[in-house]
């Protein structure tokens, strides 16, 4: 009896081949003569087999991208923290000086002002399209480039104006508009029909070839149950899905939003292409490098250029995914009890809008003041350097 207990305690490890030779022999001898322990082993083996047969579940397709996006965000934040502010200012001066010299600044300014005019008659879209478009490409490198290799920097920017326009024009003609579409729906369903509606909604999503990114059930203050679903569907199924959701009950609020990122996308593409040209050039320079320190210097720059290419390619992929898969946010509530809906949402939206528009104004003012500020900063820095030299 005591032996049975001991044997049974070791069966699990025995099954995995994790017992010593002696123990193994003891167990096998015992089992040969003890039906109870033999049955125990068989039963345990069935259990372990059942576990091993478990299929792996599929990993959501966008998980890797989500991870990498966060990793890159972390990386950028880290890099920014490590930068010396004065160096940033100097780099920015270089950007502006060369940019203005090549006419880029003038373009930027026209776009900004025309965007401003467009806002007045009521179209925010004009500004939205004009403002972010030129900024990401030329401005992005400024912080990350503030290192010591001034030579590479000016080489980089000197070439910027030439390659950029042709691809923009060419791509603009061939590429379809890239639009990120989002819908936000609030729907009231008959009492008691909440779970059923939730299930139907998820069915619609699957039928549309999409997937449910988030689904949650919770209670509002008045004890009213709410289901929130975030669905991603292929872009061409978007309208149909929204209509299907509308049919689930009474539509309480409905907000559909389309953000055109074509320009941003094309600019970013051009920027990446430029960086790739630069990468090739650095490789050529590397061939010519003679001393170790030269090689190191070029390689450092290569690392930086490549990681910049990588992270911006990541952004391109992110845009592509966001365009290919539209997002629909659905909130289902049971009808009755307090009306929670458009009002607070409207107020919040207004607050956000007010905030955004004052931010834009601020950005414009800053853009206008920037050259003066930079000159002032340069003079200040020169003065500081002079003072320090006097002291030494």
């Amino acid at each position, binding site marked *: 009896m005591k032996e049975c207990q001991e044997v049974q*305690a*070791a*069966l*699990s*490890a025995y099954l*995995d081949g*994790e017992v010593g030779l002696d123990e193994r022999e003891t167990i096998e001898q015992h089992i040969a003569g003890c039906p109870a322990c033999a049955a125990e082993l*068989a*039963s*345990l083996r*069935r*259990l*372990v*087999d*059942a*576990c*091993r*047969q*478990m*299929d*792996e*579940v599929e*990993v*959501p397709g966008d*998980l*890797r991208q*989500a*991870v*990498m996006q*966060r*990793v*890159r965000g*972390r*990386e950028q934040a880290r890099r920014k923290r490590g930068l010396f502010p004065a160096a940033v200012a100097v780099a920015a001066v270089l950007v502006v000086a060369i940019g203005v010299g090549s006419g880029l600044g003038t373009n930027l300014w026209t776009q900004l002002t025309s965007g401003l005019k467009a806002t007045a008659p009521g179209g925010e879209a004009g500004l939205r399209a004009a403002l972010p478009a030129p900024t990401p490409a030329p401005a992005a490198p400024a912080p990350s480039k503030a290192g010591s290799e001034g030579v590479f920097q000016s080489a980089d920017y000197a070439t910027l104006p030439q390659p950029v326009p042709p691809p923009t024009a060419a791509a603009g003609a061939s590429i379809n508009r890239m639009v990120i579409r989002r819908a936000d729906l609030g729907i009231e369903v008959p009492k008691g029909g909440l*779970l059923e509606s939730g299930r139907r909604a998820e069915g619609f999503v699957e039928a549309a070839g999409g997937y449910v990114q*988030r*689904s*949650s*059930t*919770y*209670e509002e203050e008045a004890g009213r*149950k709410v289901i929130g679903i975030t669905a991603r569907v292929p872009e061409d199924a978007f309208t149909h899905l929204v209509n299907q959701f509308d049919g689930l009950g009474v539509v309480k609020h409905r907000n559909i939003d389309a953000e055109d990122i074509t320009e941003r996308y094309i600019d970013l593409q051009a920027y990446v292409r430029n960086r790739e040209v630069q990468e090739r050039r650095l490789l050529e320079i590397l061939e010519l490098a003679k001393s170790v320190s030269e090689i190191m210097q070029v390689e450092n720059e290569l*690392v930086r250029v*490549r*990681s910049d290419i*990588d*992270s911006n390619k*990541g952004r391109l992929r992110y845009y592509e995914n966001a365009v290919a898969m539209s997002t629909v946010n659905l909130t289902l509530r049971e009808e009755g009890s307090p009306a929670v809906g458009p009002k607070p949402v409207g107020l919040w939206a207004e607050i956000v809008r007010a905030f955004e528009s004052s931010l834009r104004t601020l950005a414009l003012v800053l853009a206008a003041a920037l050259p003066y500020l930079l000159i002032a900063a340069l003079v200040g820095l020169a003065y500081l350097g002079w003072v320090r030299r006097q002291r030494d």
Partner: protein
Amino acid sequence: MEEAALVARCRRGHATAFEELVARYERKVYNLAYRMTGSHEDARDITQEAFLKVYTSLRHFRGDAAFGTWLFRIASNMCLDELRRRRRRLLVSIDEPYQHEEGEVQRQLPDSGADPGQVAEIRDLQRMVHDAIQHLSDDHRLIVVLRDLQGFSYEEIASMLDCSLGTVKSRLNRARAALRKYLEDQELLSPADVKSGQRGVGR
């Protein structure tokens, strides 16, 4: 590329090298988190957090254990944290509807399995086992998932859980016993069920 080289590249700040590592391991990490939490949403969060944590602490990774082992140690701890957090949340508000999705799945399971004479399909068997795993204690759940679902060796598990081989043996033994007991108590695991499942798989 070799894993050590990839890790070294990551430490020098190559995001692409890290992406390669994510590609290699995301499946296993996600599955671990899913079997531990029983929820795709939590699995998603945990996978993201685990990789992010790994990335930010790569500098402290000394390379005395394999990268995978280290990653799974981090992921395992995050799963355990999540389970603990859930229990705390449950203590604050015993809110059935909050977990209704999984709750319902659990209630349905015994029905589908207890039906006598019906040949259990592999799917059902898988759901039963998944459900049974969700009823184990945290430690038991983790060790069963690591060993019997993910197939790690005793040594790897010992290194992940930071314990001795003896502990792995005895804990796994107890965890398997608990799992079996649960399945038998629910009458989910009669020898016939499991056999038919095996036959189905051995195509």
